[in-house]
């Protein structure tokens, strides 16, 4: 939906309730809250680094210290071709669960087993792609990409919180390059994730690259300590007498600028809130109000 609004390079974001189809026997929630950002177009390395850095900055801004694990659907597909493994679904399932047993069911080639075992059991930085590239005798381009990506992440100041773990697999089939998951200690599930989905843009009639991510609002709230977050932010109700609407608007703007949550309405005899007239008073006490 968001992608259809993009023309050339676009930076789009949303915070909304999302609906997903689940079979009735599945007990997960069908409706959940999500915040996301998409970068349509742009140079690949710069856009991917911006998406990862923005996700971490967003979480920093609300007090969640998170880290990111990077995977690459491009690397997996390239290695599938290299070792002639055909069952993509079973391979990604084996990799995602780090199950060497499941991997052995898909190939008996000792070189393939060695490369995929390295890929599934190691975690590190761009050097890990170099190590896998050396073992597989391909992936030079992907190695260069990861080295450049890390340089860009260093410039954003977040490279020390970003790791390569190629077991990071995103379920959605539209991802074609970098994929990532965002996590924080104490939370058993990833609080967000994203990746590159260039091919999908063609479905919206736009032949351009795209990358993006989403954060689970529900899990972020849980990471922040559960349901108490934001409870103290009580709504300030501001009312105005005839002829004082504009004066009340000025007051509301000042309060909102300070981060207060305000409503504004004509006065109809309410007993609680702030009343703007010739004087501005607190309705409960009748005392003069100064923001």
């Amino acid at each position, binding site marked *: 939906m968001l992608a259809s609004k993009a023309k050339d390079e676009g930076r789009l974001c949303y915070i909304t309730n999302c609906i997903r189809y689940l079979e009735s026997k599945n007990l997960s929630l069908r409706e959940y809250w999500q915040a996301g950002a998409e970068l349509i177009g742009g140079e690949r390395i710069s856009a991917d680094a911006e998406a990862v850095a923005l996700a971490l900055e967003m979480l920093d801004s609300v007090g969640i210290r998170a880290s990111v694990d990077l995977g690459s659907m491009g690397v997996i597909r390239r290695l599938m071709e290299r070792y002639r493994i055909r069952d993509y679904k079973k391979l990604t399932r084996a990799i*995602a669960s780090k199950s060497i*047993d*499941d991997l052995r069911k898909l190939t008996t080639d000792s070189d393939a087993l060695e490369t995929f075992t390295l890929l599934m059991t190691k*975690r590190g930085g761009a050097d890990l792609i170099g190590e896998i590239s050396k073992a597989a005798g391909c992936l030079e381009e992907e190695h260069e990409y990861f080295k450049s990506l890390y340089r860009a992440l260093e410039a954003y100041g977040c490279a020390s919180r970003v790791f390569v773990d190629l077991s990071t697999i995103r379920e959605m089939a539209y991802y074609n390059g970098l994929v990532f998951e965002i*996590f924080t*200690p104490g939370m*058993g*599930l*990833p609080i967000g994730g994203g990746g590159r989905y260039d091919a999908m843009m063609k479905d919206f009639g736009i032949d351009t690259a795209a990358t993006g991510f989403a954060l689970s609002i529900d899990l972020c709230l849980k990471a922040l300590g559960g349901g108490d977050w934001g409870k103290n932010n009580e709504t300030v109700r501001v009312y105005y007498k005839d002829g004082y609407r504009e004066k009340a608007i000025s007051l509301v703007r000042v309060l909102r600028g300070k981060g207060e949550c305000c409503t504004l309405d004509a006065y109809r005899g309410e007993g609680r809130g702030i009343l703007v007239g010739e004087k501005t008073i607190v309705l409960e006490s009748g005392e003069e109000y100064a923001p």
Partner: protein
Amino acid sequence: MPPETKERLVFAVPNKGRMRDPALRLLESAGIKWLGEERAYLSKTTDPEIDILSVRAADIPVYVYYGIADLGITGRDIVAETGLEVYELADLGFGCCDLVVAVSKDSGIRSPSEIPHGSKIATEFPNVAKAYFDEIGIQVETITLKGAVEIAPRLGLAIAIVDISSTGATLEKNRLSAIGKVMSSSARLICNKISYKTKYDKVEAITNKLKGLSP
């Protein structure tokens, strides 16, 4: 390297059944001796950073998936049945068994492909059974039982069962024949995906220790 938190590590092991004793023996060999009392759910160990959570083997993937336990020992068959995404870090080499399709000896059915479409299959593993019959192209109705599955064909509840078999003795006792293997299973070391990242050094150290031991 990844950030290492100093939080405790919770290790889930079966609270009863054939995997409990070998699991505790294996952990003890790795220097993680259970110090709990019988029926205690959460117990300390000789490693001050590790607690043991004793719960049903079938629930261990759930506790690990949600991160209540960081690591767990349970059967491969059980992990497959839950379908939950956890890391399988090692085959621990005990609790070996096969998940098989079995029918009454006098049924005349010699392979799973001969089971008629629309047949009822009794099992404790409905998801694994359904996926198996889907893959061989036979539409079946799975009936979930919580135990004593072997009796289902004799009572006419189902034409076949999908159940674990380690020696074949229970099948034989109930006049059943195994006609196909769904999967091989054994005890696995499983890990929560986030714990693997946030407690990487500790998880790796335990995994490497357990890989080299036998219960």
